[in-house]
């Protein structure tokens, strides 16, 4: 049932990339527990605006958990403590009256802060750019049913393809590693016959690009899998490792 709570926010405020920054405290009063977390920030921002203060900048778009635009660390948990949930789908009913909520941006060297909770995730685009595609031009494809794909394989590929590129895996990883993100794309394409042809090149190129962008190293902490809003499994990281071994140590690809 709908009820209202009063809470206190401690929000990371940072005007620009290299500006002095820190936490600011704001009260959030009369918050309906049916609100999503982002709607709660909307309400706080409305008040800040009316008070002549700078509203909290945060990324968001679809607000239905699929675009991957939103995300912040809430009391130490990426996208909040609910399993398999993006911040926009995380509701205030998980809090109680009087709670203090600490909100921090994704923190990683590869994701520099733009403003407040907004970070630059273009590093993810860079990783895809390095090889996260199948090299087919429009127009020449054979009939869609010409290569049968076992249902189980298609489902595994879909499990990996569900990644929304939000960056929670990097944010949650104690080492700020992007292995879950990278492995999801490598897995999806390596599983499908259409993607096998370039699998070796792709694995090497994407891993190299990931390293170049200053992400940390995977140490199998499994925090990424636990925080991923799409619950992408680290079995994809193992598949990346297999693909990498094949590509780097077995294939003749450079």
């Amino acid at each position, binding site marked *: 049932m709908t009820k209202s709570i009063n809470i206190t926010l401690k929000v990371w405020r940072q005007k620009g990339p290299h500006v002095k920054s820190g936490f600011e405290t704001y009260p959030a009063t009369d918050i309906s527990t049916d609100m999503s977390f982002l709607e709660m920030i909307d309400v706080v921002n409305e008040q800040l605006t009316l008070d002549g203060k700078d509203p909290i900048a945060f990324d968001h778009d679809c607000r239905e958990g699929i675009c991957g635009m939103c995300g912040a660390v809430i009391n130490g948990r990426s996208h909040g403590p609910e399993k398999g949930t993006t911040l926009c789908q995380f509701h205030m009913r998980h809090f109680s009256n009087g709670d203090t909520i600490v909100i*921090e941006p994704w923190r990683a060297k590869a994701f520099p802060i733009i403003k407040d909770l907004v970070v630059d995730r273009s590093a993810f685009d860079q990783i895809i750019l390095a090889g996260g595609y199948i090299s087919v031009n429009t127009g020449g494809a054979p009939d869609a049913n010409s290569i049968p794909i076992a249902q189980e394989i298609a489902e595994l590929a879909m499990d990996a393809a569900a990644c929304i590129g939000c960056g929670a895996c990097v944010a949650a990883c104690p080492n700020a590693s992007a292995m879950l993100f990278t492995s999801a794309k490598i897995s999806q394409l390596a599983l499908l016959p259409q993607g096998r042809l370039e699998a070796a090149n792709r694995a090497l190129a994407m891993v190299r690009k990931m390293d170049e962008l200053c992400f940390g190293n995977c140490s199998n902490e499994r925090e990424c899998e636990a925080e991923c809003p799409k619950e992408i499994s680290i079995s994809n990281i193992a598949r990346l490792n*297999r693909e990498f071994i094949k590509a780097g140590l077995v294939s003749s690809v*450079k």
Partner: protein
Amino acid sequence: MNRLTNPLGTSVGKKLMMAVTGLGFCCFLTIHLAGNLTIYGGKDFFNSYVEHLHSLGPLVTLAELGLLVFAAIHIMTGALLFYQSLKARPIRYSVNKRAGGRTLGSATMPYTGFILLLFVIFHLINFHFVDKTNITTFQLLSNAFANPVYIFIYTVAVIIAAIHVSHGLWSAFQTLGANHPKYTPFLRGLSIVFSVVVGIGFGFIPVYVFLLL
């Protein structure tokens, strides 16, 4: 050569080296433990095992060299990985909470690893680089473990080793790509069992020796 070293120089390549050397140490631990268990067969049985081992001569030297190389790779790569990961998050979170993936073992790998390095040096000084001409290995043990401080140091070190391998063994398989819905749960269990066996197997020896006195 580049074609091989380049892949090994990447983050995944370095992890592979950690995994292979780590698994090597797990094998070593198993053999070392199997040998040490002969102590429960009595003083003579233990001493004859040691003699038999030393009679292998060059093979032992080869194994020692291998372990040394493995250790060098494991330590240097581990340190590099740790340093790079530290750099990957220059500003830390003010609130840290686990989501359920991290374990005691995984969270402390670099630290337990470092302590183990110190311990191994200590251990080698005590039992390896000593003059054994007039003394049996068993006596060496008895002398050492007559001192409760030694017992304490060894027990703590063995617990730390157990914590280290509780993550290390499973993690090595994951890094080598061995993740399978049918076997991974077993491997995770094996990792825990192995760490317990290592902990109790090695951990009880100093106490046993002390009680024998």
